[in-house]
C-alpha cells in the first residue's frame, strides 16, 4: 500500500466507487471523481476490479439453476387452485 493511498482524496473516492459505476453521482461529483482517477493509477485499478466484479455478478442471473422447473410450476398452480377455492 503506497503512502499516496492513505490520502483523504483516495478515501473519499473509495467510498464513491459504487455510485460512480452505477452512474448515481451528480455531474460535479463525477468530474471530481474522474479528475482524481485520471491521476491515480491505484484508484483506477481498484475501480476496474470492482467494475469487473459487478459485471461478473450480472451473469449469475442467466444461470440455468434459476429457471423454474416445469414440475414446480405445475405444483404451484395446483396448490393455488385448491387453496384459493377455500377462501
Amino acid at each position, binding site marked *: 500500500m503506497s503512502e499516496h493511498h492513505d490520502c483523504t482524496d483516495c478515501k473519499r473516492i473509495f467510498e464513491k466507487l459504487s455510485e460512480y459505476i452505477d452512474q448515481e453521482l451528480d455531474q460535479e461529483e463525477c468530474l471530481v471523481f474522474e479528475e482524481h482517477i485520471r491521476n491515480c493509477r491505484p484508484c483506477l*485499478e481498484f475501480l476496474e476490479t470492482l467494475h469487473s*466484479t459487478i*459485471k461478473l455478478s450480472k451473469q449469475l442471473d442467466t444461470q440455468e439453476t434459476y429457471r423454474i422447473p416445469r414440475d414446480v410450476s405445475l405444483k*404451484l398452480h395446483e396448490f*393455488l387452485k385448491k387453496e384459493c377455492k377455500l377462501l
Partner: protein
Amino acid sequence: MIDYKSIPDDSLVAQAQKKDYQAFEELVKRYEGRIYGHTLRLLGNREDAEDVLQETFLNMFKGLENFRGDSSFSTWIYRIATNNALMRLRKLSHGERELNDELPPPESMKRQALASHILDPKDTLLEKEMLQELNKAVDRLPEKYRTIFLLRDVEEFSTDRTAKVLGISEAAVKSRLHRARLYIRELLLKKYEEKAEIQ
C-alpha cells in the same frame, strides 16, 4: 375470448380484484419464474424456495383486494416474496445470521494493484470457475447485504426499487451494496491470489 397474455399488469390486477381467477393465474404465470429464481437465490435450496413461492402467490391472492397500486405490482410481489424468504431464513437459522450480520471492514485500498483481467475472464472455463467462486462469496454475505446485492447486481433492480421492496432508504441500499461489492471483490481476488501462489 379475452387474451390475458396481452393485458398489462395493472389491468390484470384490476380484473383479479374482481375475482377473475384467470387474470390472477396470468399474473402468477408472468411472475412465477422470476419469483422462484429470487427465492431460490435467497434461500439456497429448492424445497424452501418452492414453499415460499406457493406462500407468496397465496399471500398475493389474499392481499389483492387491499392492493391500491401505491407501488407497482411487480414491486409489491417482490416485497411479499422477499419478506417471506427472509422470515424463513431467520426461522431456519434460529438467529445465527443475526449474530454475524456485519461485514468485516473493507481492506480499504489494499490489493489495488491486482490486474483487473483476473476478474474479467475471457476463457469460458475460467469464467465458469469464477462464477462458482462468486456464488460461494455471495452465500457468505450476511443477510442484510446479500439481499441487496442479489436484487441490485444480480436481478438488476434500481436503487429506488430495491429500497421500496425492502422498505429501507436509498442511502442504506447504496451503502450496503458498496460494502457487499467490496467484500465479494476481495474474496474473489484472495481466491485467485491463492491459486496463483500454488501454480
